[in-house]
């Protein structure tokens, strides 16, 4: 049960119930679609990059609480960051969800994203948590309109 409480933290459920930045963006500079064929999670990420800085970011999609809350938190946490900073944060986040349970996390870099640290105890949910991030990274790398899968 403690693993469950760890997984579905209040903040995670809050982002699931009231997702932030969940909207289409007409004037996005790049977008990408992500899909997890295993469970059908879908997420589209819209980015507006100006002078190397993520001026705006939003998402749309359907999926489980982990995928939707992760997408919501991702948008809040990369907004205003440079492309390089966002990519670096993705690496830290990815390291957190794929670490061995019990291993240390880089709390300072992660901030509230640490709410998803419990995912590492559920190996078949890691893809749910990382889908929006993979999609965001694909969009940053100009893989416009390309479908990302986490398989």
């Amino acid at each position, binding site marked *: 049960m403690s693993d469950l409480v760890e997984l579905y933290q209040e903040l995670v459920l809050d982002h699931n119930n009231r997702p932030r930045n969940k909207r289409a963006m007409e004037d996005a500079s790049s977008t990408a679609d992500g899909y997890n064929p295993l469970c059908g999670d*879908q997420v589209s990420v819209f980015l507006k990059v100006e002078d190397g800085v993520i001026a705006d970011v939003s998402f749309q999609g359907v999926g489980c*609480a982990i995928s939707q809350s992760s997408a919501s938190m991702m948008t809040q946490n990369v907004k205003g960051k440079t492309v390089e900073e966002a990519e670096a944060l993705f690496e830290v986040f990815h390291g957190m969800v794929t670490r061995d349970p019990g291993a240390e996390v880089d709390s300072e870099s992660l901030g509230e994203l640490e709410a998803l640290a419990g995912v590492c105890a559920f190996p078949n949910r890691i893809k749910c948590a990382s889908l929006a991030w993979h999609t965001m990274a694909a969009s940053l790398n100009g893989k416009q309109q390309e479908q990302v899968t986490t398989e």
Partner: protein
Amino acid sequence: MTPQPFDVEAVRRDFPILSREVAGKPLVYLDSAATSQKPQVVIDALAAYYSGINANVHRGVHTLSQEATEAYEGARAKVRAFINAAEDAEIVFTRGTTEGINLVAHSLGTQRVVEGSEVIISNMEHHSNVVPWQILCEERGARLRVVPINDDGELLMDEYEAMLGPKTALVSIVHMSNALGTINSAKDIVALAHAHGVPVLLDGAQAIPHLPVDVGELDCDFYAFSGHKLFGPTGIGVLYGKREWLEQMPPYQGGGDMIKSVTFERTIYNDLPYKFEAGTPHIAGVVGLGAAIDYVNGIGLERAAAYEHELLEYGTEQLQAIGGLRLIGTARHKASVLSFVLDGIHPHDIGTILDTQGIAIRTGHHCTQPLMQRFQIPATARASLAFYNTKSEIDALVEGIHKTFEVFS
């Protein structure tokens, strides 16, 4: 004489995996529609085959080869009797239902499906009974037609009847839906198609462990199923085909065992069913499937089906009593499947939370994405039953669902 009550506890002792724990709790296995668990007799049959008689079949004069051939062909006879086919030659061993459907699509399909013709499937098909036909229709310039369903998940038979006509090359429809549990009126589906001279393939993957299947009575032209859903091993399946079709169909794969003689100029194909069994078959799997059929016959499929139906009714009542739960698939004729969605909670989250309670269910689209689109849902949570399940396991499921609501509250 009153029939013996179904002794589920005795049945459960036949399945060693049912006594294991998951997450520190007794395993509650409610995913038999994905694959069934295996009784000890099937596990033993595999070990006995490999430790006692392993050899290649249909060649070699030595004792082991003869014994292996007898075991292999003996299992074919068991399959024939189990589904009441007219002769052993109509039983083709495959890797599973999927391969059986692909065999028909490639072999009969390339003969019958021509430009402008039509193949009929339904809205509740598994991807394995959609994609092979889609590929074939694209290749041949044919049209794939889909019989719609109602909100309970029942086929609209009038619409099906209206689709049949001179253009129809083939009908391929599921006998029992894996995602909804609906049991289709297979006999009517076949009779209506036959009135137009159209052959029918029935996808029996889900039906075979839950209903007595009599291909003679159904009069279907093909019936495909998998061993692993019938308490047998993975990797083995059966395609039943009427002799008249199998004889005129070209081979599906070329290789050893499917030939009588080969020269570089010409190959003479083997007799049925070997024409469709190229290469060394999954001999152990066939032997295991034979053991599974013996086991099911010992239990009695009709008795087991009656018990399962009782469980299904109990489960339906219990789930329907939960506020915020909606059953997907409420056909009048259904078996074994309780597919549901919960308000505001994605099925994938339900699956994870139940797993921490030791309860195994399937969550997702169940390889029926067009069906999910029909119900405008991304996925369902599906509990599926077999005759080794109990009412107390359904109670555990109900408790797990309440727990899921709690976590999300």
